[in-house]
């Protein structure tokens, strides 16, 4: 069973539907014992970093995630806000985040070279695979994925990046370190390529 962490926000059901389509059993849950019982954990969603962290703390899930992801080494996938809260802190709401991965989260610039940049970034952007990783197996390099966000991660250690994209700035679009994989883009809304990546995560032996 794959636990989809329910932190009372975000777009959880669409990830559950994508997993169902792929034939993987999942459960949307905020119960620590179900997250402990799961084989894998997904933290998906759309939302603000501050509210996400507040909800995770109020539900007692920050410590459960720390124990399961950092200590037990359970396979973990973060999507969209789920990549951003992995870092130490976010400019959004000045939020102190999980700190599983060193680094911070910054806002896209409003303009670049005098030209206005649309923020939030909403739409399909090309993703360059900068480091080979099995989660990308079967997905061509430079494939478009669907993004919805105003903030992007800046890892302390650039070596955790596995993909990048451009929106005014070149930004890290996906990271991987040990049992942790996370993407800025929405796997559940990115057509066949997104489903393939999601399927790869569900099958990978970490």
């Amino acid at each position, binding site marked *: 069973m794959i636990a989809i962490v329910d932190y009372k926000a975000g*777009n959880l*059901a*669409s990830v559950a*539907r*994508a997993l*169902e*389509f*792929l*034939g993987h059993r999942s459960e949307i849950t905020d119960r620590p014992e179900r997250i402990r019982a799961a084989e894998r954990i997904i933290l998906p969603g*759309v*939302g*603000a970093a501050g509210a996400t962290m507040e909800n995770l703390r109020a539900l007692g899930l920050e410590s459960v995630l720390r124990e399961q992801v950092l200590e037990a080494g359970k396979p973990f996938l973060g999507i969209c806000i789920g990549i951003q809260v992995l870092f130490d802190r976010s400019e959004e709401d000045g939020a102190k985040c999980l700190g599983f991965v060193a680094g911070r989260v910054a806002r896209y610039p*409003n303009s670049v070279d005098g030209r*206005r940049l*649309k*923020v*939030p*970034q*909403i*739409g*399909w*952007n*090309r993703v360059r695979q900068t480091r080979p990783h099995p989660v990308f197996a*079967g*997905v*061509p390099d430079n*494939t*478009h994925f*669907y*993004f*919805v966000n105003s903030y992007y991660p800046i890892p302390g250690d650039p070596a955790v990046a596995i993909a990048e994209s*451009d*929106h005014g700035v070149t930004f890290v679009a996906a990271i991987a370190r040990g049992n942790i994989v996370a993407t800025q883009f929405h796997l*559940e*809304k*990115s*057509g*066949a*390529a*997104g*489903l*393939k990546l999601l*399927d790869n995560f569900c099958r990978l032996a970490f």
Partner: protein
Amino acid sequence: MLAKRIIPCLDVRDGKVTKGVQFLENADVGDPVAMARHYYRQGADEIVFYDITASNERRGIMLDVVRAVAREIFIPFSVGGGLRTLDDMRAVLLAGAEKVSIDSGAVRNPVIISEGARAFGSQCIVLSMQVKQTGKRPGVASGYEVVIDGGRQFTGKDAIEWAREGERLGAGELCVNSIDRDGTNLGYELELTRAVSEAVTIPVIASGGAGEPEHLRQAFTIGAADAAIVASIVHYGTHPIPALKSYLRTHGVEVREQVTIDTIDKRSIDKRNIDRGAP
């Protein structure tokens, strides 16, 4: 750089698509799920369903359509038409839509934009506006006026000002539908589209008038649109989405390339056969 999006729009009444069925060789004619699947496989970047069901008691039918679409279409799709309250929006989003499109309801009650943005996030809220050119005058400085109820009702609101207000209230995207061009196949209202796009920082979707691939190129370049709604140009099969994208790519417009991944595409077909009860 973001790809320019092509968004087919399906008008749905009582659970059936009201126009454009010629291209479907084997699919259920008029079935919105079959048509959405068709466009998904053709490489649509997003899909819009516009519910034109007249009676309130039959609106539940649309939610069934949304649920069915969400089970097999894994790109964003939005639902508009008749959404007036937070509960209306919540029902559509819970059924599986990525976004809601609000139109006349937002003109009558602008606070619905900010309430929706606070409850579900700005990225969920598309402010759709119907616009007619009615001449420059005090209150309508641009000469473009917002109309409601399918273009029958004039509001005295300037379209550019309404776009700015919509952004300020928390809309995540703006869809600008020219009533003058709608159904004409003469091309998008480029001046209006550009004026709105320059007035706001959120993405702008051009709507109304596409009849030729060149019209899309114009919307993305001259009109500075981020996305374009297409209806009859794709519904009647004259310009399938891959042909539109190929035209745009040839003319230097960045569009999404559709990838084929055998294991995933095969699953789509297998699942459908199971759903139909095939062996």
